[in-house]
């Protein structure tokens, strides 16, 4: 495999609140390879979006990155001057957000906003940039691009605004495009169009895509590798097909079991994950998933598992792993998914 274009090492981001310190991202490490499409999935509060914002040093106050490295071309982005970082943002690494409505300036014409992204980084003239903005709008398949470039954002539909955002992200042909829930606010038929566009652009332009999402289906369709986050930490990562076929962390496993599938022809009861995600002000000791895990053993209550290779290319942080849960605890035929149900380990009180 080629060498990584971005290396994240032990990233830590904290939010200081009245009630204490929230470790939103707590020691996250991963590599991103050129041209690949990496999914980061997790539920609200898992730290997936804060991870993305931390890479670009865009974490809003009172949050701040307190540790780790983000290596891009031998530079640690966390150590760059503000000025150098501004050069990287939008030129080498671009980001698109969930809500294009609030990310676009309502009083500037769409085409100009895209041109502005180029004017900020290149020595192109205003006219050249505007011409290229129209090309970019065509590239993201906006019909009648010339006239749309003269429209204000409110004149565009939700799907078109997200396309315009993507065009803006692509303006300087970045090596990395980070997309934070880019389709969550869109209707499903429009979502499908945007996902197809992102997949095409990933192929055509060779930019690496980091897809932040809560939707396992989006990862399945678009990504080649996936990182699963829970309570500020990576709990599993590896090739998409492998992880969907044979997840090793009980959280990944139960997440996949809890999604109703539109193609299922039988009515099966969903296997929901009991309990709620932990309060990051007071994360549980040991493994952070143990209060909800049907397969927990005593060690899980006190000792935190580290992320280690459990299969070729597949990392998971679990003392038990699903292979053992299947072999010894009958995970495949498990009907009761309450915490500790499969392992029979129920010490302590559950905090609900």
């Amino acid at each position, binding site marked *: 495999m080629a060498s990584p274009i971005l290396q994240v090492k032990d990233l830590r981001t904290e939010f200081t609140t009245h009630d204490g310190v929230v470790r939103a991202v707590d020691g996250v490490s991963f590599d991103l390879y050129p041209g690949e499409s990496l999914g980061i999935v997790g*539920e*609200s509060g898992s730290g997936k979006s804060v991870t993305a914002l931390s890479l670009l040093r865009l974490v809003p106050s009172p949050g701040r990155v307190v540790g780790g490295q983000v290596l891009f071309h031998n530079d640690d982005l966390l150590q760059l001057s503000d000025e150098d970082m501004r050069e990287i943002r939008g030129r080498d690494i671009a980001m698109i957000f969930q809500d294009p409505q609030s990310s676009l300036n309502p009083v500037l014409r769409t085409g100009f906003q895209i041109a502005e992204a180029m004017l900020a980084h290149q020595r192109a003239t205003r006219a050249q940039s505007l011409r290229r903005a129209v090309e970019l709008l065509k590239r993201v398949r906006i019909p009648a691009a010339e006239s749309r470039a003269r429209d204000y954002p409110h004149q565009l*539909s*939700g*799907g*078109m605004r997200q396309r315009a955002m993507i065009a803006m992200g692509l303006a300087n042909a970045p090596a990395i495009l980070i997309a934070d829930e880019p389709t969550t606010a869109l*209707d*499903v*038929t*429009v*979502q*499908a*169009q945007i*996902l*197809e566009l992102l997949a095409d652009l990933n192929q055509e332009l060779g930019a690496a895509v980091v897809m932040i999402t*809560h*939707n*396992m*289906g*989006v*990862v*399945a*369709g678009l990504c080649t590798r996936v990182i699963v986050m829970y309570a500020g930490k990576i709990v599993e990562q590896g090739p*998409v*097909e492998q992880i*969907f*076929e044979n997840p090793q962390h009980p959280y990944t496993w*139960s*997440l*996949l079991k*809890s*999604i*109703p*599938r*539109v*193609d*299922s*022809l*039988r*009515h*099966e*009861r*969903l*296997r*929901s*994950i*009991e309990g*709620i*995600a932990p309060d990051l002000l007071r994360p549980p000791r040991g493994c952070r998933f143990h209060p909800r895990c049907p397969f927990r053993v005593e060690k899980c209550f006190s000792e935190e598992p580290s992320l280690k290779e459990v299969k070729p290319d597949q990392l998971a942080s679990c003392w038990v792993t699903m292979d053992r849960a299947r072999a010894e605890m009958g995970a495949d035929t498990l*009907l*009761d998914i*309450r915490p500790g149900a499969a392992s029979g380990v129920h010490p302590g009180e559950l905090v*609900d």
Partner: protein
Amino acid sequence: MAEALVDIPRPAGDNAPTLIRVENLVKHFAAGIGQTVKAVDGVSFDIKQGETLGLVGESGCGKSTLGRLVMQLIPVSSGKVFLDDVELTSIRGEKLRQKRRQMQIIFQDPYASLDPRMTVGDIIAEPLVNFGVMRGRKLNQRVQELLRVVGLNPNFNNRYPHEFSGGQRQRIGIARALALNPRLIVCDEAISALDVSIQAQIVNLLEDLQREFKLTYLFIAHDLSVVRHISDRVMVMYLGKIIEIADSVETYSSPKHPYTKALLSAIPLPDPKVQRGRRLVELSGEIPSPISPPSGCRFHTRCPIARLPTPCAELEPALEEKGRAHLAACHFSQDV
């Protein structure tokens, strides 16, 4: 809790009596001078007792408006809604209020639909107090029982909504809806704001409650996979019209309307092998404005199989039987 992973028998048989009947329902909203939004534009269907009828569609299709019309939370422009054989659209005042007891609604946003200054106990007790059903110790017992039924600690009744997570708040909303022993519950995007793992908890809870209390659901959501999972029949709306109603398995295995097919194909499946091999039915463009819906079949501007201009842009297709208990509104449903 421990539930067998087998087909759960559906509570509603084919012979179950009709609970809700909707006839030619229309709701137009004024939108500026001389313009109307045709939010619901001539809709007829029924819901059987004990059944879950799913209602899906994209934003602006009129599904939430339809839910509110069924409950008579907003007045209809024309058309009729029956509960049993009583025409709700022709009664008002105290008579309507008494009928409304039998119908409750659960909203999407558990943050916005609970009064932050009321305790959870008061929130759940409110419908019982409003209708003068019970008070004092009996009321407290009922509230605690309702909390237990939805899987919350009965001693939480003195806490406030902000002390609960999103999923727990939705349970509170469900407890409030159950308070008056309703027969119909309209779930309006009731799980859309929740995380995936919490969604599954609430879906399972709704299924358990339905069996226990013989509830009938109108389950409104934009997520077709959840709707299909929970529903006996699925109804698809597009621009104020019902374009298909079918058994939930048939909806997936043999859709008779190109829009339903497109919706299904657009849902990304959490299965990389299947998902990569799937072909997205490319629907060009987005939903047109309900202020000036397209002529003829409202879907013709985005339809991959439309024959233009005749008949699709000129003749509005009727919602007709295309199979056993399977209705669709398409001139070319055999080509879907």
